[in-house]
């Protein structure tokens, strides 16, 4: 008897495909929501940083410790990598595997240089006596910026995996979904960085 629901329902059916859902579409929405949870995560770190950034406990202040040239370089590198990851998607939509992989490689290299510069900057700071435990300001600074760096690093590892799969399988539905997702992720990290630059660095040296 219970089939009735579906049976009579057929009268109103709009030719909908039965319960089959495009898995890539689901993934895209799922990933988008995940990114939003990440927005909240960074928001909380920002809140902590903003509340604690004056608590320098006698240690260096933002003015004393931030070196803008490196930061500016990082910013433009990341911005460009966001752009190139977009070009990768364009190449994919045009069906060009080689071009897609090349753009991903460029993105990867830019991302890696970003991380390199950031780590280098951190090391310099530590040498100047500004390390994780120096003050609440230092702790929240390293945590906030470091979390972003960690995200970028995770993205790099993930991008490698995707490149391997692209090389092996070419552009399929599954790999296409993965490229779309990682490029979204990459743009997102770029957006987060903009706020890091603004709230942490620019307001710090202002």
């Amino acid at each position, binding site marked *: 008897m219970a089939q009735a629901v579906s049976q009579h329902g057929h009268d109103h059916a709009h030719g909908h495909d039965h319960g089959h859902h495009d898995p890539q579409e689901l993934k895209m929405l799922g990933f988008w929501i995940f990114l939003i949870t990440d927005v909240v995560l960074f*928001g909380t770190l920002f809140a902590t940083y903003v*509340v604690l950034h004056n608590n320098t406990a006698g240690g260096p202040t933002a003015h004393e410790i931030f070196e803008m040239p490196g930061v500016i370089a990082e910013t433009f590198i990341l911005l460009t990598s966001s752009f190139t990851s977009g070009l990768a998607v364009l190449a994919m939509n045009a069906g060009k595997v080689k071009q897609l992989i090349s753009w991903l490689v460029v993105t990867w290299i830019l991302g890696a240089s970003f991380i390199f510069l950031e780590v280098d900057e951190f090391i310099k700071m530590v040498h100047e006596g500004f390390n994780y435990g120096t003050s609440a300001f230092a702790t929240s600074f390293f945590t906030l910026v470091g979390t972003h760096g960690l995200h970028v690093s995770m993205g790099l590892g993930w991008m490698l995996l995707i490149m391997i799969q692209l090389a092996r399988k070419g552009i399929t539905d599954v790999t296409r979904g993965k490229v779309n997702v990682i490029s979204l992720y990459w743009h997102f990290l770029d957006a987060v960085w903009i706020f890091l630059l603004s*709230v942490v660095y620019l307001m710090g040296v202002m």
Partner: protein
Amino acid sequence: MANHSDHSHGHDEAHAHGSLKSYIVGFILSIVLTIIPLVVVLNHMLSQLPTILIIMVTAVLQFVVQLFFFMHVRERQGNQPRWNVMALIFGLAIVLVVVSGSIWIMTYNGVGY
């Protein structure tokens, strides 16, 4: 499954994922929007409040640029509601609450610095 997703993908392909033009425009805009606050801050052109305003406004604008030119929030799937935009707006509202609420509450409980 595979044959299935093929056709469902086909129809949004045409207008999806932006074009080279939109990427380039977005890229240029974001570079400009980065340079503005940098110049303002590094040359100490303005006093504190306007500087903060400029920094925040350009940051937000740049975020918008990323959203529209790179992340394509304007696209929608079929005629479904834009869940992603709603979620984003709600998320940003929460972030705003978290940050401004914390600042407001904690001003009364700062440790002596």
